[in-house]
């Protein structure tokens, strides 16, 4: 409502400011110590030194990657939790993660997953196919959708595991992808997945208002004049695009999609458009903070970011289970 706008906008601006700080930190902090003045010069007075190269070719792309992947995971989590009215849903529940993992394993077994971009395409295709399968089985109700997603995920995970046990080199290749990380993934071209994420984020804002009616239940949304079938389909397409692209780029970092919508929901107080906006800022903050943590936590080297987000997300998940429990399922 009109009276809420200043408070909500102020909160969003504060979150954006925090994101800016975290992004600057993401460019500044790393295993190689670089003086702040040198960081500034990397942009203002580029000389092509090692430090400048690290800043411009590694840390900046990695930070941008983190922002878009974090926003995509947060937004897709918020969308799927809203649509299924299930606070424990996350994008992986539609089979996105298992589908991507299976495709990479299968591709590896068939000798197709040689390059990083081949892996990226395999992962994305696997995500999309898995969701299509889940949707065709479970489209009649949110509960069926979730059950179909969980069932397919288990089957695909089992098949993937079987392939990895039988084929050691598939296992080796999968290990790198499966940890979920931003490190080492900033070097390849991500133009297409990042563009897809950007467009999907804008579209996610556009479905937020119809979802505002949808959360009152499908009957109410329908009699309020909503296009319920169209909205549901749009949400599923967007979740697949966002989570599929994010997973393809950075591997499975599922906790962001699970926990960020919980935090954002407290702030949004029932408004889906604001929920979407908050998740798109808080998701990148969590991912970048985790990524910075992954660089500095161990003196010997990097911890994969998914390990750090899980570390931060674990307690939040336990809190959510205690708070909502089985009643919401």
């Amino acid at each position: 409502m009109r009276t809420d706008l200043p408070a909500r906008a102020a909160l969003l601006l504060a979150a954006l400011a925090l994101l800016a700080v975290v992004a600057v930190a993401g460019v500044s902090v790393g295993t190689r110590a670089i003086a702040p003045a040198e960081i500034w010069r990397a942009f203002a007075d580029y000389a092509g030194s090692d430090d400048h190269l690290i800043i411009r070719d590694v840390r900046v792309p990695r930070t941008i990657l983190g922002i878009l992947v974090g926003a995509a995971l947060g937004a897709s989590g918020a969308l799927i939790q809203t649509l299924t009215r299930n606070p424990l849903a996350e994008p992986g529940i539609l089979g996105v993660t298992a589908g991507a993992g299976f495709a990479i394993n299968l591709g590896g077994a068939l000798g197709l997953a040689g390059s990083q971009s081949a892996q990226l395409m395999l992962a994305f295709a696997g995500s999309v196919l898995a969701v299509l399968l889940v949707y065709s089985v479970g489209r009649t109700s949110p509960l069926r959708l979730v059950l179909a997603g969980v069932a397919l995920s288990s089957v695909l995970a089992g098949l993937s595991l079987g392939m990895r046990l039988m084929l050691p080199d598939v296992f080796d290749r999968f290990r790198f992808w499966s940890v979920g990380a931003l490190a080492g993934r900033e070097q390849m071209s991500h133009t297409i997945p990042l563009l897809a994420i950007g467009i999907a984020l804008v579209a996610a804002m556009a479905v937020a208002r119809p979802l505002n009616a949808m959360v009152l239940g499908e009957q109410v949304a329908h009699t309020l004049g909503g296009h319920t079938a169209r909205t549901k389909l749009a949400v599923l397409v967007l979740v697949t695009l966002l989570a599929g692209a994010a997973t393809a780029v950075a591997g499975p970092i599922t906790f962001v999609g699970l926990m960020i919508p919980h935090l954002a929901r407290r702030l949004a107080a029932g408004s889906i458009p604001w929920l979407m906006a908050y998740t798109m800022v808080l998701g990148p903050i969590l991912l970048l903070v985790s990524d910075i943590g992954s660089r500095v936590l161990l003196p010997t080297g990097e911890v994969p970011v998914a390990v750090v987000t899980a570390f931060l997300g674990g307690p939040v998940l336990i809190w959510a289970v205690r708070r909502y429990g089985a009643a919401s399922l």
Partner: protein
Amino acid sequence: MAARLTAQDITLGYGERVVSEHVNLDVPDGAFTAIVGANACGKSTLLRSFVRLLRPSAGTVGFDGRDVNGYRPKAIARQIGFLPQGLVAPENIVVRRLVARGRYPHQSMLSTWSAENERAVQEAMAAAGVAELAERSVEELSGGQRQRVWVAMVLAQETPYLLLDEPTTFLDITHQYQLLKLFARLRDEGRTIIAVLHDINQACRFADHVVAMKAGRVVAEGAPADIVDAELIEEVFDLPCVVVPDPVTGTPMVVPTA
């Protein structure tokens, strides 16, 4: 006066199962119509067809001479409001924000919250008696309060037609009467009310027009005093009874025998 909302020879069902066949009904304008009947007689199904939740497999539900399914969803949603059963509010939502959702059909994708919307929400909350709960979280309200909040939501929709599916279920007798009086007042202000009611005595007391259904058919309709007698109740509910005048209002009152 010709009815604006009509069912013309409609057949309703779910998949292969036919619930109602050849139902004709003209909903009287500006009146309070109660649909009564035993469980599973098709009264909720009929209501659902009026709000496009169920498409008739034959026949037409018409509004102003046009098929209700032919309207743009938001256009028909500005004419006909509906309160279904078993509603669950989203978590963390305060009353006024839930009520504000009733303005959905009056908003476009990019429109901002207008003074007109705010007025409608305030009036709806006042009418439903939930204005003082405006800042409370819906989750922490009692069942009766929550039901009135949902009523406020559908009132904020500001539709001339208001359809209610068993709106008094799960409420204690005081809250039931409060709600029915509210609907009667809305009728007095010019709205058309159509409610599925379980309690035949309440239907007789508050409704101008009673539609009695059995096994998917309309067996009788008319003013309560004209149609409700022991014979009809026996036929519709399979319940031996006597019908006496209500000591307060003089409307028919059903008293089961033995």
